[in-house]
């Protein structure tokens, strides 16, 4: 952990010094400037509109969407199964970019809030073998499947840093966001079918397992076009 903090601090200092070296004081003037952005990163794909409300502060209003599917991400120790996991996140966010250092205008502190219209992780588990019950070979419908849903829908605060200018000096630039959302404690639901119907009693354990899954880190590239 200390090693991580040391490396993170070192990285930040290096970035600030690098940014300082590139800075021209006249670039700090973002008041009333506007840009639009295309975002690509851990938040999926999205777009933003940015407006400078002060010499040092710009507001960003945007939307990001993640549609993700992954197979066999999880398993049960005593059940030969295949799993399909999907994560679907859609958020509308309002962020403020604050440029604290005159001499390092490309380093920003970013804070704000998002409303996750959709923030759902779903895992479906199905037996991978031909399951039999005694001498009876069961069909997949008779065995059934398990759906485990985890839902973080709601409001989440955001904090992070931004690298490079929030509004391009000329027409285009690329800047970076590093930060994290802090999601609400998730709601969980387990639905089973066939002979797996009784698994809803495991909802308490699932909630216990995922209740700390609240940090949603953001690593994002923003392609900006100045209006």
């Amino acid at each position, binding site marked *: 952990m200390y090693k991580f903090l040391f490396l993170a601090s070192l990285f930040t200092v290096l970035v600030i010094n690098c940014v300082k070296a590139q800075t021209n004081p006249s670039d700090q003037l973002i008041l009333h400037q506007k840009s639009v952005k295309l975002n690509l990163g851990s938040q999926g794909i999205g777009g933003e509109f940015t407006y400078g409300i002060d010499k040092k502060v710009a507001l960003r209003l945007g939307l990001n969407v993640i549609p993700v599917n992954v197979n066999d*991400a*999880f398993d049960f120790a005593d*059940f030969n199964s295949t799993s399909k996991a999907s994560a679907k996140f859609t958020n509308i966010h309002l962020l403020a970019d604050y440029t604290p250092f005159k001499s390092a205008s490309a380093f920003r502190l970013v804070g704000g809030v998002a409303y996750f219209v959709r923030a759902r992780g779903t*895992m479906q588990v199905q037996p991978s073998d031909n399951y039999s019950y*005694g001498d009876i070979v069961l069909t997949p419908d*008779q065995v059934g499947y*398990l759906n485990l849903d985890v839902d973080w829908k709601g409001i989440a605060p955001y904090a992070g840093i931004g690298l490079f200018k929030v509004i391009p000096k000329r027409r285009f630039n690329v800047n970076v966001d590093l930060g994290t959302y802090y999601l609400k404690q998730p709601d969980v639901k387990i639905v089973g079918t066939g002979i797996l119907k009784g698994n809803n009693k495991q909802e308490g354990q*699932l909630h216990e*397992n995922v209740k*700390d899954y609240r940090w949603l880190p953001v690593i994002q590239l923003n392609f900006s076009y100045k209006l």
Partner: protein
Amino acid sequence: MKIYIKYSMVMLLLLSAFSCKKPTENIKLVVDTDILKYTAFIRVTDAATGTIPANAKITISGAAADNIYELSGKKNFNLVQGVVTIGLGPALTPTAANPVSCTATITATGYTTVTKTITFTADKSQQVINIQIAKAGSNTPPIVVPDPPVYPTPVVLTFTGTCSNRRDFEIRPSVYIMFRETGSNLPYQYLGYMDKGVITTTALGQGKTYDVQTTFNGEDHKVTQKIELPSYSLTLDMGNACNNF
């Protein structure tokens, strides 16, 4: 799709970077045993004494015999403590117009062989078949076993089937339950049908201790419990039934 998979793996790693537990940690897979939807609990007793005849055997015959299974889904029909539960496999479902029948034949050394037709109908998922067999040449009238007493306070027993060799596995047994007061040495009596691990009964009295028994896959499973509360959650080691899945 490959991009999605790589991308999602990164996202999952990021999401879990500050979390400790795997989402499926300590989650047990709960499995129901009610594969056979139409069952019959067959109990064989000595007609004169009500005791369990030694060496009694059962065979199942008739047109539907191929689709008749022991409750564990196996074709082994063994009387354990004089009882066995049989049922229709999922391939055969009785309808109002077409009930399904089979014949149970009970043989035991020194007893007259008895045959009994067992009919599965659409409106009856469970049934209890008492078969009394008499010693060859005996003229003693059959004993009448009195019904168990009825107590005013119902008791709910919730059973969880556990497997010592499969830690992530739990069973909600759907089985017929027998009982007797502990230490009474009386024959077990029928308590009722436990549906997905739960049975509610008025046959258990407060302050009394009971042996509760069920038979599954050729094994009998027993639990002893003193009744002092309106409900109990009990565990039942499912033995070799765990290997049934």
